[in-house]
C-alpha cells in the first residue's frame, strides 16, 4: 500500500479566467488574463482576480448566507471534481473519502466583516454574529464540503501559506498510500480578496502590484514587475489508488510522481533559494527522475522584485545546463496569486499538456529581467513541446514553507 501508485481522476476548479478546466486551459493557451479592478474596503480600486462561478449551481441560498466564500468555492470545486471523475458517489462509502483542502489563511474575511458590521452599531458586541465561530474555524472550507455532501471521512484544511494547494494533493496521496481513505478530494482554495488586510499587508511590504491596466498587473519575470495581484480561486481533485481507478475504468489525468515539502528556517517572508533548490532536487529524486526528465516547470513566481529572482536562482542551480527539453512557465501572470489555491490551480492549468503537448506561456513580459532569463522560459505565447511526460509544480509560502510536486503522464 505504501508504494501504491496514486492518480488524478477528476478536476473541479474556479479561476479568475475560467470555471472549468476546459475554459481555464483555453484562456491560458490564448493568453487571456482574468485580472480586473476590484473595490477593496478602506483602500479603493486594486487589480484582483475574481471568480465568476455560479454558487447557486450547487448550493442553496441559505447555505450561502450561513457559510463562507471559501466554503462555497470548495463546494463548487468538489462537486465539479466528483462529476468530472465519474465516481459513483451515491454508492461510495462516505466514511472512506477524505477531504484535504489547502488554505493560506482562513477567518480574516469573516472577522473583518463582523468588525465592520458592529462598527455600524457603535462596536457593541451584542451585534456580533453567532455564526462567527463556525465560519472562522480553520477547518471551515473542508467542513462545509463534508456537510454539503454528507462525507463522513476525515475533512480538514492544511494551513501552509501559499504552498497549501500542493500540500492538499501531497497529503491526500500520503493518506491514500497509508490506506486511511479510498478516495480523496484535495487541493486548495482561497477567498483572500475579500479581506482588505491581505491587500494592505502586501502594500505595507511594498509587494502589492499596480498597473494602469489590471490585465497587465501580474507580470512575473518582467523588469518592471512591482508585486502581487491578490486573487481568489479554488481547485480540488479526486485522487485514487491506480488499481481502484483502473477497476472502475476511470479517465486518468496524471500520476503523482514525487514531491518534497521543506522549510527555509531563515525568515518570516524572504524566500531562501538554497532551500528551494533543495526542495526541487528532493522532489525530483523522490520521483526517481533526474532534472533533464522534467518537461514543464510551473514556477511559483509572484512578481515580487526579489522573490522571482530567488526562484530563478534555485531553478538555475538544479536545471542549469543539460536540460534542453525543460520548458518553464508561470500561471500567476494570467490569474494573479490565488494564495491557497495557487499550487492546485497552476497544476491544473498544465495537466492537459500531457495530451496536447502545449505549454502555456508567462504573459505580460515586455522586458525580461536578465536575472530571470532562464533557458526554456515560455514567454507571451504558448508553444509546443517535443514531449510532455512530467510537470514539476513549485509553490512556496511565508514562514519559509516550500513545496514541489511532480506529476507524470500516466503510462499503464
Amino acid at each position, binding site marked *: 500500500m505504501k508504494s501504491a501508485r496514486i492518480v488524478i481522476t477528476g478536476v473541479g476548479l474556479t479561476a479568475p479566467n475560467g470555471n472549468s478546466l476546459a475554459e481555464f486551459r483555453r484562456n491560458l493557451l490564448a493568453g487571456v488574463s482574468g485580472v480586473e479592478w476590484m473595490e477593496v474596503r478602506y483602500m479603493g480600486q486594486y487589480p484582483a482576480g475574481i471568480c465568476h462561478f455560479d454558487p447557486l449551481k450547487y448550493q442553496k441560498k*441559505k447555505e450561502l448566507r450561513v457559510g463562507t466564500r471559501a466554503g462555497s468555492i470548495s463546494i463548487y470545486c468538489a462537486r465539479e471534481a466528483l462529476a468530472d471523475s465519474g465516481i459513483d458517489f451515491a454508492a461510495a462509502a462516505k466514511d472512506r473519502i477524505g477531504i484535504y483542502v489547502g488554505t493560506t489563511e482562513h477567518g480574516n474575511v469573516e472577522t473583518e466583516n463582523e468588525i465592520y458590521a458592529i462598527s455600524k452599531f457603535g462596536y457593541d458586541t451584542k451585534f456580533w454574529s453567532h455564526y462567527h465561530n463556525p465560519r472562522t474555524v480553520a477547518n471551515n472550507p473542508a467542513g462545509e464540503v463534508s456537510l454539503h455532501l454528507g462525507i463522513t471521512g476525515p475533512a480538514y484544511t492544511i494551513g501552509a501559506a501559499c504552498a497549501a494547494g500542493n500540500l492538499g494533493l501531497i497529503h491526500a496521496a500520503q493518506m491514500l498510500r497509508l490506506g486511511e481513505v479510498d478516495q480523496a478530494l484535495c487541493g486548495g482554495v482561497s477567498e483572500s480578496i475579500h479581506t482588505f488586510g491581505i491587500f494592505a499587508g502586501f502594500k505595507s511590504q511594498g509587494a502589492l502590484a499596480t498597473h494602469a491596466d489590471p490585465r497587465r498587473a501580474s507580470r512575473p519575470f518582467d523588469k518592471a514587475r512591482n508585486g502581487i495581484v491578490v486573487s481568489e480561486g479554488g481547485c480540488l481533485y479526486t485522487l485514487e489508488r491506480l488499481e481502484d481507478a483502473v477497476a472502475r475504468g476511470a479517465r486518468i489525468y496524471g500520476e503523482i510522481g514525487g514531491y518534497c515539502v521543506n522549510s527555509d528556517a531563515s525568515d518570516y517572508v524572504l524566500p531562501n533559494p538554497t532551500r528551494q533548490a533543495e526542495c526541487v532536487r528532493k522532489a525530483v529524486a523522490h520521483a526517481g527522475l533526474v532534472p533533464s526528465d522534467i518537461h514543464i516547470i510551473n514556477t511559483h513566481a509572484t512578481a515580487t522584485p526579489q522573490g522571482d529572482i530567488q526562484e530563478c536562482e534555485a531553478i538555475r542551480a538544479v536545471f542549469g545546463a543539460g536540460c534542453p527539453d525543460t520548458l518553464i512557465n508561470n500561471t500567476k501572470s494570467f490569474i494573479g496569486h490565488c494564495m491557497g489555491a495557487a499550487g492546485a490551480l497552476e497544476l491544473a492549468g498544465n495537466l492537459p499538456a500531457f495530451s496536447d503537448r502545449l505549454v502555456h506561456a508567462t504573459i505580460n513580459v515586455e522586458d525580461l529581467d536578465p536575472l530571470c532569463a532562464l533557458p526554456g522560459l515560455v514567454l507571451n505565447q504558448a508553444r509546443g513541446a517535443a514531449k510532455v511526460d512530467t510537470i514539476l509544480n513549485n509553490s512556496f509560502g511565508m514562514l519559509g514553507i516550500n513545496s514541489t510536486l511532480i506529476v507524470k503522464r500516466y503510462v499503464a
Partner: protein
Amino acid sequence: MTKDECKKVVLEIIADIAPDEDLSQVKAEVRLRDQLQLDSMDFLDIVMELRKRYGIEVPEADYPQLASLDSCGEYLTPKFNALPAKP
C-alpha cells in the same frame, strides 16, 4: 402596531433567514420549526434581526415565545408598541 402587522414583520425576517423556503403557506398557529427548515441558529438569527432592525431584545428565557407566528404576535406586539416613537 397590530398583531397581524407584527407577524408580517417576523415573516419578512424569516424570508431573509430562510431564502429557499416558500412562505406563502405558513400557518400562524403551527410551530415554525414544524413547517419550515429552521434550526436553533436560525432562531438566533430572528433574535438578532429584531435587535438590529428594531432595537427589540428577546431574553433567552423568552425564546419559546417565538415558536409560532401567533405566539410571536402575542409576545412581540407589546414590545413594538413600547418602542419610543420615531422623531
